[in-house]
């Protein structure tokens, strides 16, 4: 590489002082940019989901020049729109014992002691501001008759701190952030580049100098320079092919940054969500989530007897196993996701699965309907019940839902320091794209919180700390030859993909890749399985490179070509995930290595050897990445064995 960066170091830049004071200390000591000077700085924000839209709008309000990019036709389409259940905040409006400390603690514990304490504490602190901000913007959160905000509970917590807008919380939050961004676009403070995909990142003189994008309407590749670049490009759950993510979610932006020097942290930490509608046929394109909030009132069970094919109504109480209530009495049906998913897998593996393919467990609302009445249940979950019926043809008011775990969220992502900067100076990552706050397992309703915390209340503060040094200094613009070089590489890449001339579509390879990753790097991982994946993925990738067929040419709109580029990046990411999972010889959160479990099948952590973030460096060979470790120290909470019993 001609434009070398310094050797990556993992300095988390955690501020001094006691945990609860760190964020205030940071703000007291950071370098600011005065209001009149802000307009001298250009910031590129890639991604306009919750994290990106909130960051772009806020940075523009502060006075920076902002260019925002999304491959969607409108910011309102980002995958954040699909979040159903809710958003956490330590408001303690219920007076049920919640506090910043408790939210902090629950998040650390939920993440199985694999997240950075300082970041998580800040997240809990700013969570309260998010709700205030969103209400001010007109987000119609659910309310009680007295007019105050309502709350519900979510997995992994014993308090009710989740704010929600029916089953459409992500939609309402994203529309709030989108509208705020739209206002800035309307008055000319943000330039929006829609249907434009980031295809590479450009570094010059040891810092991120800009990006290279492809206009999806014309196929044209072009460059954009800036003082700083923010990637808020979402997660990589679609590496599994089948997931609850929207079809277009992909890893390309983060992966291209990784290939240019940004370390990728904890790629094997992926979340398998316990309550999705089971797969019904082989060419299914995606899986649908049934919000975790349903576990507030639904009871999970399977028949006690393996292979019991009676219809659920005919199975008497005595023949049912409410396994979550039995195994985890204090959290019951609200046990965290990783734990509930594995429990479902165990039930199904032992032959107790239900439904035509015996690939589900029941989520039963009969008790709730008896206790609360059908109307209350309909008010709480009506739209989810309707969606379930549209997809399965079964009515969950009368017969229990069938659910099964599916890939849902990725805790891993670009390594960032306390200021959300990647290992490339001037390149930031926010929202699901970074690895920061959820450790090895994310609690429900905490992704929306983190995305908005990053975009509204963290980045706008931390970015000035970096920008201030560039005041009145010139930075390279897109006439610098490095931009032309990276552009040429991008054009060559799409040309190569478009002209392989094989026989198989990108979707075929994506599906096959997804199967390998699901089988060997999904809910349960073993050394032998991961070794197998690490030999099968390169072989399949080889086939992809020879047998891919993309029709439609390179110029102009070509969805097949877009897909091919994204699938290629999933191949390389898939190898890194398996490498990371193989290297991490312990079980923690969503990463379950079958070799490391307790007698009753729970995850067995190894704090002695693995209390670190694994951050991987690209070496030019996808099979030979270099590992860097950021040790994790806990000042405030000691390591504990996670128990939800």
């Amino acid at each position, binding site marked *: 590489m001609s434009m070398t960066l310094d050797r990556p170091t993992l300095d988390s830049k955690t501020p001094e002082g006691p945990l609860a004071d760190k964020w205030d200390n940071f703000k007291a000591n950071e370098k600011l940019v005065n209001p009149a000077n802000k307009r001298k700085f250009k910031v590129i924000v890639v991604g306009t989901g919750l994290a990106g839209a909130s960051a772009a*709008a*806020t940075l523009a*309000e502060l006075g920076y020049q902002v260019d925002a990019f999304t491959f*969607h*036709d*409108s910011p*309102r*389409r*980002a*995958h954040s729109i699909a979040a159903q259940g809710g958003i956490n905040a330590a*408001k303690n409006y219920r007076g049920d014992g919640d506090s910043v400390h408790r939210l902090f603690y629950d998040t650390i514990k939920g993440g199985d002691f694999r997240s950075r304490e300082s970041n998580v504490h800040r997240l809990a602190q700013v969570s309260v*501001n998010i*709700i*205030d*901000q969103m*209400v*001010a*913007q*007109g987000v*119609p*959160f*659910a*309310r009680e*008759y007295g*007019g*105050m*905000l309502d709350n519900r509970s979510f997995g992994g917590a014993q308090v009710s701190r989740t704010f929600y*807008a029916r089953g*459409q919380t*992500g*939609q*309402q939050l994203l529309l709030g952030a*989108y*509208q705020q961004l*739209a*206002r800035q*676009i309307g008055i000319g403070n943000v330039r929006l580049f829609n249907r434009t995909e980031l295809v590479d990142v450009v570094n010059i003189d040891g810092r991120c100098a800009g990006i290279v994008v492809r206009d999806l309407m014309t196929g044209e590749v072009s460059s954009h320079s800036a003082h700083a670049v923010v990637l808020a490009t979402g997660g990589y759950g679609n590496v599994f092919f089948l997931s609850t993510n*929207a*079809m277009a979610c992909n890893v390309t932006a983060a992966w291209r940054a990784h290939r240019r020097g940004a370390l990728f942290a904890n790629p094997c930490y992926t979340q398998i969500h316990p309550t999705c509608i089971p797969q019904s046929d082989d060419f*299914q*394109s*995606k899986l*649908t*989530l049934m919000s975790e909030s349903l576990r507030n009132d639904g009871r999970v069970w399977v028949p006690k007897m393996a292979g019991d094919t009676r219809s659920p109504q005919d199975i008497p109480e005595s023949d049912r196993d409410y396994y979550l209530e039995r195994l985890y009495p204090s959290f019951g049906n609200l046990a965290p996701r990783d734990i509930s998913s594995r429990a479902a897998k165990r039930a199904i593996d032992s032959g107790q699965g239900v439904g*035509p393919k015996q690939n589900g467990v029941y989520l039963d609302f009969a008790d709730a309907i008896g206790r609360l009445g059908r109307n209350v249940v309909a008010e709480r979950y009506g739209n989810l019940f309707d*969606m379930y019926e*549209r*997809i399965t*043809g079964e009515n969950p008011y009368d017969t229990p839902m069938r659910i099964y775990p599916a890939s849902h969220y990725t805790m891993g992502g670009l390594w960032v320091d306390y200021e959300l900067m990647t290992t490339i100076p001037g390149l930031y990552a926010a929202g699901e794209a970074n690895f920061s706050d959820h450790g090895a397992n994310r609690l429900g309703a905490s992704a929306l919180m983190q995305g908005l915390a990053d975009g509204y*209340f963290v980045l*706008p503060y931390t970015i000035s700390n970096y920008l201030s040094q560039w005041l009145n200094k010139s930075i390279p613009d897109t006439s610098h030859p490095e931009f032309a070089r990276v552009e040429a590489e991008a054009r060559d890449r799409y040309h190569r993909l478009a002209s392989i001339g094989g026989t198989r*579509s990108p*979707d*075929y390879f994506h599906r096959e890749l997804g199967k390998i990753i699901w089988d060997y790097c999904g809910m349960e991982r073993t050394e032998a399985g991961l070794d197998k994946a690490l030999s099968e993925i390169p072989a399949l990738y080889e086939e992809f490179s020879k047998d891919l*067929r993309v*029709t*439609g040419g390179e110029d102009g*709109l070509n*969805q*097949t070509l877009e897909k091919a580029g994204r699938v290629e990046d999933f191949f390389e990411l898939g190898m890194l995930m398996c490498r990371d999972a193989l290297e991490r010889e312990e079980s923690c959160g969503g990463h379950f290595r079958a070799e490391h479990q307790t007698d009753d099948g729970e995850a067995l952590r190894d704090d002695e050897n693995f209390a670190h973030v694994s951050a991987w460096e690209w070496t030019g060979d996808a099979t030979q990445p270099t590992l860097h470790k950021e040790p994790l120290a806990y000042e405030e909470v000691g390591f504990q064995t996670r128990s939800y019993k």
Partner: protein
Amino acid sequence: MSGTLKNLTLKIWRQSGPNDAGRFDTHVIDEITDEASFLEMLDILNERLVESGEDAVVFDHDCREGICGTCSLMINGQAHGPERATATCQLHMRKFSSGDTIVIEPWRASAFPIVRDLMVDRSAFDRIVESGGFITAATGGAPDANLTPIPKPVSDAAMDAAQCIGCGACVAACPNGAANLFTGAKVTHLNLLPQGQAERYQRVENMVETMDDRFGSCTNHGECEAACPKEISIDVIALMNADYRKAKTINRKSLSRV
């Protein structure tokens, strides 16, 4: 439970760009399970087309959960197809029968130019929102969220309107290509809430006028409400119209005061 559909004939609109005349292509699907979604059927067709060297049919889609508003197909002349309150991506093949001919077209409205095949450009909706579909509340200064109680019925009514997914089915279904249901939904959401009062009249005036510049006029056909996958009530148009009339007086008065 599940069954198989046989021998479906798809007549799909193909158009290479905004200025191309366009035409229907016919494809036969020999067999498909009724568990498949409508878009999965198109996925299968596209994979077949690509693997046999032809260009895939371009269509917009993303969440496949009926919430992002990206999918947008006219199916047998109905926006989002035959199932009530259901976006295209949530439509399943069990709503069709063996031997059916299914006509698939893009949204047709002058404000939504066709990009390619079944994909249209709906950015005119973004222009409406940019002109006033927001509450100005810069990040940082918001008071505690429970400081302003909002009666549940008010908040529920705002939420009913706020559910709009911005898909454009209302425009596609309207014989005039009007965007009053979309615009009315956003105006109603924000104008009902206490937080939205400060900008209430300026908002409605700006949004309605931006809308009128780009879309056709509403003549109360009501097709929009019937096509809406979120069942947004046409009442939002009445509220918007009432606020617009008031705005015309109030905004004129406040102008004369400056």
